[in-house]
């Protein structure tokens, strides 16, 4: 089955600043794929290029089998929800959907009422978009994206600015849409929340793709990290340095040590510290999460001498 979106060797510069460097990833049909990374990592630039909104320097992008610059020929099969709800403020919610439907050019597929109900704002149909809250505007943007027959739904930072309840509702909505057969690509820096819905993730930082894999692969391949508190800290660092394959990644201002144990077990690390005369007050193996995967990738980048923003 061909990918819903395929990005190959994408390069995009703004003047002398290279915003995206040789990024390649695919969004398989039927997946919920995350384009993850901190603010300013190049996610939105990558998405803008992929959606034919921004000319790029090099690379090849296909959206539902068409080159990105011909995205309009997908005739509504791609729907995008941009960061910052892009609505016609002078129109009501229903009129916003009608406005979008006219641009779309066909009346088939999901109706306005269905889209409003699915996003939980059916009771706001007659309200002007300019008077809606941020969460309601976000929902209306999604409702607008859902009219017609979209196959690929692209969401750029859909959780930004939402409160906890709003975030939960939004994640439930994405899951429901995925269950209805939609392929979803979501760009976000909210890793813990994204982990609950993604089936696949591409992690991008500093304009570079660090990893792309299914979520299972990403979490299984994650190397264990230990958070260690041992006094005196310099002795602990020296003891750990003597262990084979153990790397002290970071010594924090509160003397907490972030340690990559490598082949050495946490118990052996503890024993080595005790043998060195250190008082170990904490030794916490970190659970493998998307956030820890990301942190370890950041650590790897730092270890390789790549400058990573704090």
């Amino acid at each position, binding site marked *: 089955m061909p990918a819903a979106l395929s990005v190959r060797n994408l390069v995009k510069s703004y003047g002398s600043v290279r915003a995206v460097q040789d990024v390649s990833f695919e969004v398989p049909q039927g997946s919920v794929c995350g384009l993850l990374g901190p603010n300013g990592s190049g996610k939105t630039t990558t998405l803008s290029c992929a959606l034919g909104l921004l000319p790029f320097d090099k690379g090849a992008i296909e959206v539902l089998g068409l080159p990105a610059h011909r995205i309009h020929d997908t005739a509504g099969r791609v729907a995008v929800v941009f960061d910052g709800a*892009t609505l016609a403020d*002078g*129109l009501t919610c229903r009129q916003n959907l009608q*406005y979008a439907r006219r641009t779309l050019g066909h009346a088939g597929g999901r109706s306005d009422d269905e889209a409003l109900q699915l996003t939980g704002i059916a009771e706001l149909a007659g309200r002007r978009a300019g008077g809606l809250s941020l969460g309601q505007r976000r929902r209306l943007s999604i409702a607008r994206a859902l009219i017609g027959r979209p196959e690929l739904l692209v969401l750029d930072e859909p959780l930004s600015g939402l409160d906890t309840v709003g975030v939960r509702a939004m994640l439930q909505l994405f899951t429901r849409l995925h269950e209805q057969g939609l392929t979803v690509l979501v760009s976000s820096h909210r890793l813990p929340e994204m982990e609950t819905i993604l089936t696949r993730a591409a992690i991008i930082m500093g304009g570079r793709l660090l990893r792309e894999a299914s979520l299972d692969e990403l979490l299984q391949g994650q190397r264990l990290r230990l958070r260690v508190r041992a006094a005196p800290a310099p002795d602990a660092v020296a003891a750990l340095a003597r262990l084979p394959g153990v790397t002290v990644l970071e010594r924090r201002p509160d003397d907490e040590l972030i340690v990559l144990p490598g082949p050495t077990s946490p118990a052996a690390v503890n024993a080595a510290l005790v043998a060195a005369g250190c008082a170990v007050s904490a030794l916490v193996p970190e659970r493998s999460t998307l956030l820890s995967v990301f942190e370890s990738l950041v650590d790897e980048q730092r270890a390789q001498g790549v400058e990573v923003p704090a």
Partner: protein
Amino acid sequence: MKGTLRVLSAEWYRARHSRVLAVAAFFLAVVAALRVVAAWLADRATYAAAVQRALSQSRPAPPPPGPGNAWSPFVDGWLAGLTVATLLLLIASARSLAGDREAGLLRVARTRSASRTALVLGRALLGILLVLGALAVTGLGSFTAASSLYIFGPITEGGFTIYAQEELRAELLSALLATLAPLLATWVFGLCISSLARGGTGAVSAALAVYLGFDLFKEVLGPRQYWVFAAFNPSFVDKSCLHEMSGIARGLSDAGYSAALYAQNLWLPWPWAAGMLLVACVVMRRRAL
């Protein structure tokens, strides 16, 4: 072409359902009508002054004048409405692409089904509807006020008919036809500026600055001003064909464009519009949305 028509349909839908269009249409009709009312009040004031002068000189007051001919105030009212309409059209077109780009609406349309060229051409076609609407609304406002306060009739002087009603209607039709093309070119000019600008406010400011700057200083160019489409628009420093029609409605024998200038008025705005539309399309094809 389908994409262009889809954009036109969507933009027309948005325009019809926004309060701004209704308010602007009402405002233009009121401006046109007020211009007629102002002319009527001026006539009344002139008569009142004549009565006062006569009474102060112990002469009998002159008889009240008749309702007067409606043609001159009607054309003046229409002209005033169109002068304001031109500026509103310019503001709307300059705001169009740049404002929608700023609001992200162009991105939404682009990713769903509209090509970049269609985004421009659809809005250009919307201009035709809005220009025709502006002509209709201002004409209606002026006609309603003029026919309420005056009587339409032939232009006469000393008992002789200078212009029959049929001639006046034909002249008015010619003048309106001559006004249509430059107004459309003005709309496209706004789009062109809009495609170049970073934001809606900047686009509107730039478009108004260039347009009003030309209007104020066009006299410096002498006859060469007529090589610019904007010289034919109803404006504050008015040189338009409709302005000449206003002279005709007053019975001025030397009013009206020459045949050559009228022909220039009819064709010159089109290459201007085509050129500016091309620039807007080229710019929009290259811009980040």
